[in-house]
């Protein structure tokens, strides 16, 4: 049977076919849909973890217990999971363990474009790289086999174009002959204290040598000899662009990118006149080929930054470009917080209070954009709180009062909680605002330990944020309605003045939550055009439902208009109107 699947759907399918028992992840674009699609297969225990480190540790436990386990994350998630990963490389596995990492060249939805292939080399684990959905499925299956055969975790590296691209996949059946998982004690292999680890490390090095040797006969590495004047070593989605733009060139397509199959590379290099490596981001393959003493061209012509496209590859090789129409400047269309988003009022208040806002990762990072313009830093998941502490250590007593950390519920539970522990322990005077909208919104509404539901949509314990903060030692905790602008601004101002750690928790849900009884629309609002003076005060919150309509006489005059299709009845614009021109409609 053939189906059109995204790379992420195909990885989920591959895990199912491979007999995977446990799948665990923290959501992150472009990897999120892998776990969401695994929920189709009841044979697999699938769950969201609070962060990538926990997700990998759960997967490690499942593997040690004898079951095949899949762990998925976006590229920056590996930074969080790196600690267990590096030692997992030493212990090896019991049931196969596959770590899927989805990179984001071009940073379509990310804060950096780190190249995860470096982790495979750093942690000394094999890495496979599929170039379409069919390969996503096959390589996932193969990765489980390699994992068990070589006693190693295996990384499967995707990228945005592979994960979110769709192509035709031939489906297969689930393997059924795997051993039943059971507890088996093997402390010499699994207890990594120095004496045991010293025994394991040489085995890791031997394993990588064996993999490099055997790579030359693996079917996923293949030389395709066509015109031999140009030979291109490539992998992943880059292979597709090479075939698109230079269909006659010879290619060495690498399915396993680490360790590299040295013998195969030497043979290919000897058969072509001029050797190139085409790869996105870092010169990962290129540097190693050059270290083998082989002349090769790569990053001289292909950028270290961004993703490849057929056009960029044409430019790199000096090939003729089709001439399209020149772009014309038009108003941009950046992403925006949704109409009725409960974050908007908080950022409006922070802007008015001229706060210095250390921000975090989520929809609310959009609070950086005009007209709210109320975010000053954003580095990584959970960083807002630690950064707030750090800023207050160096600025004047007066400026300390300006420092506010803003973090979402899911991000706080991911890695923000440690920062708050530190804040209380080391007595930081900064203020923390936890934007609790009851969901992991940015990645598409995933549940988390504070949403009350699991990935499988079973109801579960809901973390009580005030109680959690109390347990951490926070003495000043305020819960506010962020749709009440007066209350929001007043409470934030009061807590900013306080010379001790304080936490403000907002309690309105994301407007996109579909689950019943969580988000409810209010009455629709409308502008009374006879009262509206055109003062534009309501435009200051940047709600997509409010439009400024010019008078049409060329003057600056005009009126506000609320789109009834978009309005959620949040009431925030009404509070901004000093002329009572905005009201709810019956």
């Amino acid at each position, binding site marked *: 049977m053939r189906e*059109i699947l995204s790379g992420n759907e195909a990885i989920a399918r591959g895990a199912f076919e491979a007999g995977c028992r446990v799948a665990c992840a923290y959501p992150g674009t472009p990897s999120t849909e892998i776990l969401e699609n695994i929920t189709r297969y009841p044979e697999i225990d699938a769950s969201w973890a609070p962060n990538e480190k926990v997700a990998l540790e759960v997967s490690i436990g499942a593997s040690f217990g004898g079951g095949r386990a899949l762990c998925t994350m976006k590229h920056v998630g590996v930074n969080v999971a790196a600690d267990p990963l590096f030692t997992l490389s030493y212990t090896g596995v019991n049931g196969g363990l596959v770590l899927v990492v989805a990179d984001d060249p071009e940073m*379509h939805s990310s804060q950096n474009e780190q190249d995860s292939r470096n982790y495979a080399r750093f942690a000394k684990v094999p890495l496979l790289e599929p170039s379409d959905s069919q390969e996503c499925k096959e390589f996932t299956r193969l990765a489980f086999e390699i994992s068990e055969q070589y006693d190693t975790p295996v990384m499967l590296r995707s990228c945005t174009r592979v994960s*979110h*691209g769709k192509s035709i996949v031939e489906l297969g059946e689930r393997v059924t002959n795997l051993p039943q998982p059971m507890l088996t004690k093997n402390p010499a292999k699994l207890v990594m204290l120095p004496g045991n680890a010293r025994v394991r490390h040489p085995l890791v090095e031997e394993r990588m040598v064996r993999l490099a040797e055997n790579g030359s006969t693996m079917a996923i590495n293949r030389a395709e000899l066509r015109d031999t004047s140009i030979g291109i070593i490539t992998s992943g989605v880059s292979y597709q662009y090479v075939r698109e733009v230079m269909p006659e060139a010879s290619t060495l397509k690498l399915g396993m990118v680490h360790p590299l199959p040295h013998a195969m590379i030497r043979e290919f290099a000897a058969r072509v006149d001029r050797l190139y490596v085409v790869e996105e981001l870092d010169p990962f393959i290129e540097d190693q080929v050059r270290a083998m003493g082989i002349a090769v061209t790569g990053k001289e012509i292909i950028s270290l930054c961004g993703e490849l496209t057929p056009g960029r590859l044409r430019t790199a090789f000096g090939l003729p470009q089709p001439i*399209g129409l020149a772009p*014309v400047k038009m*108003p941009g269309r*950046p*992403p925006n917080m949704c109409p009725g988003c409960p974050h908007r009022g908080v950022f409006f208040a922070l802007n008015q209070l001229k706060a210095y806002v250390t921000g975090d990762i989520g929809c609310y990072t959009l609070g950086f954009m005009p007209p709210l313009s109320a975010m000053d830093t954003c580095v990584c998941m959970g960083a807002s709180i630690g950064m707030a502490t750090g800023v207050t250590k160096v600025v004047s007593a007066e400026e300390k009062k300006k420092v506010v950390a803003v973090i979402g519920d899911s991000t706080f539970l991911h890695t923000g909680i440690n920062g708050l522990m530190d804040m209380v322990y080391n007595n930081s005077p900064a203020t923390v605002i936890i934007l609790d909208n009851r969901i992991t919104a940015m990645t598409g509404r995933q549940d988390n330990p504070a949403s009350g539901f699991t990935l499988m949509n079973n109801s579960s314990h809901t973390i009580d944020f005030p109680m959690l903060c109390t347990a951490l030692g926070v003495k000043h905790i305020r819960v506010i309605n962020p749709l009440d602008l007066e209350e929001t601004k007043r409470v934030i101002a009061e807590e900013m003045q306080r010379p001790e750690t304080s936490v403000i928790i907002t309690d309105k849900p994301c407007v996109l939550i579909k689950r019943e009884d969580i988000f409810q629309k209010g009455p629709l609002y409308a502008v009374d055009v006879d009262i509206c003076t055109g003062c534009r005060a309501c*435009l200051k919150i940047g709600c997509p439902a409010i439009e400024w309509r010019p008078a049409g006489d060329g003057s600056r005059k005009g009126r506000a208009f609320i789109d009834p299709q978009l309005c959620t009845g949040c009431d925030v614009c009404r509070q901004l109107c000093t002329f009572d021109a905005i009201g709810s409609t019956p």
Partner: protein
Amino acid sequence: MSRQITNILLVGVGGQGILLASEILSEAAMLAGFDVKKSEIHGMSQRGGSVVSHVRYGTEVFSPIVPEGEGDILFGFELMETCRSLPLIKPGGTVVANDLQISPPSVLMGQETYPADLVFRIQDHFPDFLLVDGQKVARDAGNVRAANTVLLGAVSRRLDIAEEFWMKALEKMVPAKAVDVNKKVFKVGRGL
């Protein structure tokens, strides 16, 4: 071997239903026996930002994204986004666009104006241009919410995929209760 590839770009604003339309298109192409690839960006672009979905079908498709300047058909769900993507289309390419304007934030706030000359701009460069009032046609045919399907029908007439495959794709991809009205509206669009 020469590869016959048809390159289609579907463009508009996040939330307009572009992904579903591109899935129906891909499914129909697969059912018609073609190799198919499709690509778009999720994530940040869903929050009301510009969305571009690439669909390519033919004998054998390599790149998941349409090479710059090689688009055969631009399928626009919104006028300004249609215009923004014109550089991706080859000279002499086809444009099928919904006659709909959605103001971006800077226009909503009165800082910039929505460009007035978009239709002429498209017409000047692409004589093969069909402008459809998708909402009106869909409303007249029975359901205003099926505007995208009207447009899809109009695009389908310009593609070498038989009607039976479109019908099968609609049956698979559209919610069961909406299949009949979508089929009806699709056929109206196919006549445009």
